[in-house]
């Protein structure tokens, strides 16, 4: 453990991105050569409302330090209304996590369109920084998944 303490903290971050806007936004960030930390692992989903609360808890269970959900801007959903439902669900989930004493800021929702490569990269940079300041996720996570 003492060796680990000296090691630099490398957060594991999971980003759920909707296929139509945010994943394309990430693509654009890439092709525009905008940098965002390699700690962010993107999981592509058909729509932000495909993400059920279990996905987020499972990510934390298996060792994620932060989870971010990106979707189309409200009103721009490819399926018309998916992100509206996602918005309500995530509000509920985040408030429950807060209620149970999980640090605020480990979870986040951001609307990123296909044209917002810059927003994607700044959001990810900000989020990684936030997780850095919060440190390792110890409150949500299965001990068995730790090394």
């Amino acid at each position, binding site marked *: 453990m003492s060796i680990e303490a000296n090691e630099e903290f490398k957060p594991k971050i999971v980003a759920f991105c909707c296929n139509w806007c945010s994943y394309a936004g990430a693509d654009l960030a890439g092709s525009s050569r905008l940098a965002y930390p390699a700690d962010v692992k993107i999981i592509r989903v058909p729509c932000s409302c495909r993400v059920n609360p279990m996905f987020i*808890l499972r990510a934390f269970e298996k060792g994620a330090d932060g989870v971010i959900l990106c979707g189309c801007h*409200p009103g721009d959903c490819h399926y018309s209304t998916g992100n509206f439902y996602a918005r*309500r669900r995530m509000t509920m989930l985040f408030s*429950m996590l807060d*209620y149970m*004493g*999980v640090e*605020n800021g480990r979870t986040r*929702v951001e609307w990123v369109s296909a044209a917002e490569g810059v927003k994607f990269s700044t959001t990810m940079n900000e989020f990684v920084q936030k997780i850095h300041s919060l440190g390792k996720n110890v409150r949500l996570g299965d001990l068995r998944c730790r090394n």
Partner: protein
Amino acid sequence: MQELIARAKELLADGTVARVLGWKAGDLPYNPEPAYFEKEEDFKDFVYNSFCGANLSKFMIEASKLEGKTLVCLKPCDTYSFNQLLSEHRVDRDKAYIVGVGCKGKLDIEKIKKQGIKGIKSISGAEISDEADTLTIDTIYGEKTCAFSDAMLERCHVCKGKEHKIYDEIIGESKETKDAERFAEVERIEAMSPEEKFAFFRKELSKCIRCNACRNVCPACSCRKCVFDSTKFDSSQKANVDSFEEKMFHIIRAFHVAGRCTDCGECSRVCPQGIPLHLFNRKFIKEIDELYGEYQAGETVVEKGPLTSYTFDDVEPGIVAERG
């Protein structure tokens, strides 16, 4: 109770209903069980008293598949659950004959035993017709007394009211037993620091034995197969190897009924370890009330609940962090 039995027998005899869903007296003064009555002689065991806490509306899912109507005894708070099940098309209104039974608060035997009352032989004051404020309990260790309100289930202290929300007829008087604020406990936890909140829930959930009683009793938990029963899911159902599993189970359980939970309090009633599970459900109810407008699930039959509808101007999930 006699009026109820007489009416049930009458409806059974004239063929209006094929069976009656009520409670059967147990072999101890406080353990009646839900039961079906199909013949007149079955009614010798029929009982309805303050220990009949079980919410019978979930049984109507199965009863809706049976031939003929089922007479079901519902207390005022149970009718909310029935409405909610109707909204979700899980029960058939035409298969139910709802008798709204009177309720003056239901008792929790655990609370009586917590007061050191054991070796119970008989309990008086628990009959629905009694208007006693105290229970007189005859035990092998002598006669004991206990205030009725001290032995009431938690949910009765935040009673939603004495009105039946759906019924075919009402038998018996009801009394509102509310003497505490519904969200007081939730607010107390909200005011804690994250460390305290975390410690509080970890301590409570460390008792969880994963018996799934809270899930199985819940009228809103009516999935044919629960995700936690899946064999393809490695942190599933039974074990409590690590504290995370309980957290995940209880968050998901409460989340899945968010917006549909009528706050009937069955989860907390049945928990063998006395975990205040209603605190999870009530947190969601409170948030829905605050963010999307006051909503009481099961008040009426509705097309859409708060989590299956939306408005363009809903708050962003970031609000949770902003309000601190």
